[in-house]
């Protein structure tokens, strides 16, 4: 039965040491019909994800399916960058270094627009970088990453009988709320979903072009700062 229970709904793990921001992100995610778990630290996040100290990419985990290591299925992790003890970047690294967790898409949030920070996270494999305060239009950009994560899990945990493209997508309904707030002071243009689909694993790929990252700065360019 495995993942059948969560077939139609995505489960997002949100990590933030600020209670207000946890409340906010939880509401934003629930509004988009995701199942949400919030934790207040990176270490609690890893605990929730069932991370183990020795669970590294370079250990030979051949016969064991990744699913066995997860306590609960998580389809995406969204984390604050600035946290005491373990930053969002540290958490991202640990997830990407873990053989059982590395396929989980990770999104970083930060209140500070620091290009070097953003680059570092993207290079480490973060799917997106959101500037705080996070908005519904940001959360709407998560869908393709969640879909990708889901497809990957289905592909890995079932014997390959048919090509991935023939697998039914878990959510057949059209995107609920694409751009529901027309007048937005912070503009995220440039077809965000298209640019994020270009990113596969993220580990080797640096930033291909400047305009890909511009939407993530919520309209602020690297230069103007």
């Amino acid at each position: 039965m495995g993942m059948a229970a969560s077939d139609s709904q995505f489960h997002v793990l949100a990590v933030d040491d600020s209670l207000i921001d946890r409340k906010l992100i939880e509401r934003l995610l629930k509004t988009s019909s995701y199942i949400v778990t919030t934790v207040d630290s990176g270490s609690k996040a890893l605990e929730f994800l069932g991370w183990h100290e020795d669970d590294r990419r370079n250990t030979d985990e051949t016969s064991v399916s990744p699913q066995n290591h997860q306590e609960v299925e998580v389809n995406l992790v969204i984390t604050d960058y600035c946290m005491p003890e373990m930053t969002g970047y540290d958490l991202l690294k640990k997830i990407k270094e873990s053989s059982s967790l590395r396929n989980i898409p990770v999104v970083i949030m930060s209140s500070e627009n620091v290009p070097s920070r953003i680059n570092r996270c993207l290079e480490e494999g973060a799917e997106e970088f959101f500037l705080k305060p996070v908005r519904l239009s940001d959360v709407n950009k998560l869908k393709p990453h969640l879909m990708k994560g889901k497809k990957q899990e289905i592909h890995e945990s079932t014997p390959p009988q048919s090509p991935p493209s023939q697998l039914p997508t878990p959510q057949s309904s059209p995107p609920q709320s694409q751009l529901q707030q027309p007048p937005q002071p912070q503009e995220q243009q440039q077809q965000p979903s298209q640019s994020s689909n270009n990113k596969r694993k993220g580990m080797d790929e640096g930033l291909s072009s400047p305009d890909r990252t511009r939407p993530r700065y919520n309209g602020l360019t690297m230069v103007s700062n």
Partner: protein
Amino acid sequence: MEIVGQLQKQYVDFINSLFREGYLDDQYVQLQKLQDDSNPEFVVEVVSIFFEDSEKLLNDLASSLQQQVVDFKKVDGYVHQFKGSSSSVGAQRVKNACVAFRNFCDEKNLDGCSRFLNLVKQEFYLVKNKLETLLRLEQQILQAGGTVPLIE
């Protein structure tokens, strides 16, 4: 109902003045948009957390600046938190005061920090007052059977 109309007008005028004077920014509207029938108290909840958190931060800031040897990194950490929470609720003037405050932390300027702590405190209590009035008006509208107008 006439009373509802009056209250709504009062509300609209008041919240518009708050936007105009920079007490609140668009993030507050975002909070209101996240409130619905399934979460009718969302804004009140978030704002209440903001009030509580802020009081604690102000106390922490005051005591950290009173130390024999001031740990400016620690002070900056508190201001960073305050900046974050005020930004998340749309308390623009508080946020801006925090941004300026951080410059003095960077410079390890105790005098500047003390002055800006006072400013942040002032701005916080101002916006707290405004928000309490705003939320009270909302309650009155709802109790009178009306709906709260959403300003865009």
